[in-house]
């Protein structure tokens, strides 16, 4: 490898945090959405981010793949710093998968095309290979028989599973989930969470914005609570749910856990 000069060897890279955010601020106009965010995510770590609406949790994970631009501080993903350099942004987006609240599948493409379009155009994978990969991940999310259909013909839960498979086809190192079950009918939440749990079991690095506290308890290494653009509290799920430190966290938990 000629790029061994710039990038550390595999061994040291494994121990490095895959995402390192330091002193990051973001404003929407005058509104200070994110305030002094410091966060390190280790490889294989699973973090659940919760908090009231408008607290900046979605914005935070959207900064990680540059769907939103941060104005101050540093975001380093997989050793690459996010700047205005388009090349870096493209590289990072290849490494970071994202699942949206409203699925955002491409309605004019079949399920199979939805999955293979990224690998074909971004990773320059031959079509046949990309489609094989696509089928592999469709099997994984238990939806292979729908490959020829269009997104509009699928239920919400199926669409979200396709969206997860679409991200996985890019072979990302990190997966971001932005409220993946919030737009689903209650009976479909479980099928999506099941897919996410099996992904977690395989050791995927995951940042999940979610209020599914059962899911948080069972898979998260860390749970973070955000409010007014700050990370107010973070802890392992056990302590986070049983002994929250801050009053705001307690209040929030009491509201969502009833």
């Amino acid at each position, binding site marked *: 490898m000629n790029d061994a000069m710039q990038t550390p060897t595999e061994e040291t890279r494994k121990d490095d945090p895959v995402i390192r955010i330091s002193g990051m601020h973001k404003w929407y106009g005058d509104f200070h959405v994110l305030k002094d965010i410091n966060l390190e995510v280790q490889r294989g770590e699973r973090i659940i981010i919760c908090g009231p609406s408008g607290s900046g949790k979605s914005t935070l994970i959207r900064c990680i793949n540059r769907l939103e631009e941060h104005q101050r501080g540093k975001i380093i993903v997989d050793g690459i710093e996010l700047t205005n350099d388009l090349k870096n942004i*493209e590289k990072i987006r*290849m490494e970071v998968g994202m699942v949206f609240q409203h699925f*955002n599948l491409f309605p004019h493409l079949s399920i199979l095309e939805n999955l293979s379009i990224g690998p074909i155009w971004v990773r320059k994978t031959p079509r046949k290979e990309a489609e094989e990969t696509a089928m592999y991940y469709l099997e994984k999310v238990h939806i292979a028989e729908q490959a020829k259909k269009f*997104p509009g013909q699928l239920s919400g839960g199926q669409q979200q599973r396709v969206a997860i498979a679409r*991200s996985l086809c890019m072979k990302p190192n990190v997966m971001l989930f932005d409220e993946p079950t919030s737009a689903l009918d209650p009976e479909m939440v479980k099928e999506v969470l099941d897919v996410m749990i099996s992904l977690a079991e395989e050791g995927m690095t995951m940042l999940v914005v979610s209020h599914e506290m059962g899911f948080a308890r069972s898979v998260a290494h860390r749970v973070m609570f955000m409010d007014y653009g700050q990370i107010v509290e973070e802890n392992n799920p056990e302590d986070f749910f049983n002994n929250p430190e801050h009053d705001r966290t307690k209040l929030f938990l009491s509201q969502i856990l009833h």
Partner: protein
Amino acid sequence: MEDVRLPNTPVDDIRPPRTSIGAIGWLRANLFNSWFNSLLTLVIAYALYQCIPPLVRWAFIDSLWTSTGPECQAADGACWSIIPANFRFIMFGFYPYEEQWRPAIAIVLLVGLLIFSQYRRNWKKYLFYTWIGGLVIMGVLMRGGILGLTPVETSQWGGLPLTLLLSVFGLTAAYPLGIVLALGRQSRLPAIRSLCVVYIELIRGVPLISLLFMSSVVFPLFLPEGVSLNAILRAQVAIILFTAAYIAEVVRGGLQGMSKGQYEAAEAIGLNYVQTMRLIILPQALKIVIPPSVSILISAFKDTSLVVIIALYDLLKTTQSILGDPRWMGFSAEAYLFVAMIYFICCFYMSNFSRKLERELDTGL
């Protein structure tokens, strides 16, 4: 509670009441379903009775199809003879008479290519090369000068080939240009954005006629001495520039109809701007705007007839000029009906094609 129907008692299918099916049912439902509608039906039936028979008599029974002009003047009915007698001038204008097989073949070739291109299964790379080849052959046929074909100046081109040339090239060039303008108008770069806005608003604020005038009168003033641009080419450019501005606004409407989520999903899987637009956004946005774009294409097709004002002999102008012939004076209705039919066939074909395309591209969302 005694009147409960047992759920398992089968009821045989019986025929619907006679008055609700068949011809009587249809008449009752559609023509006589209230006293007001019945009245309307009767009034319209009377009006049709008054109009249709004389029209049929004029157009078919008393009409002449293969006579000379003076015979027509003596007859009562329509003089369709004006069409066959002047057919070749209507179709080809001043194109040399013995050479008119050349534009005829060019038209057949063009129509064949258009029909071939309407099937999506033919939308492959070779279609592009087929078009290039077809256009070269058509150009050679029209212009001549090589392969032993007599050269024919473009000033002699006219009739249907000219109309088709102006519209087919006008529309195919205007559409991509319109898309580029629409994307430019949404650009983040202020210079590009304002350039596109100024262009679109300027062109839309001016009638096509004045653009055509400018192209033929004002534009040559800016050319260096001795350089002249072909009149057809100048008209063609004016039509393209004009139509593109309208297409741009329609396409922009489609782009604005796209949800932000589509852009984000495309970006999130790493597609760059060009890929995002080409693979994700434009296919959807253009599909949404098929109906309004086809309206623009249809009206642009008909607007090509405005080139008469810069002395080009398109289909409408050649027809108009045969009416100046004393032998055929006074039969403008017949001649214009014939031209209207040609225009109608083309426009109807376009709108049918657009509906077919919409159906084929429908993916349920």
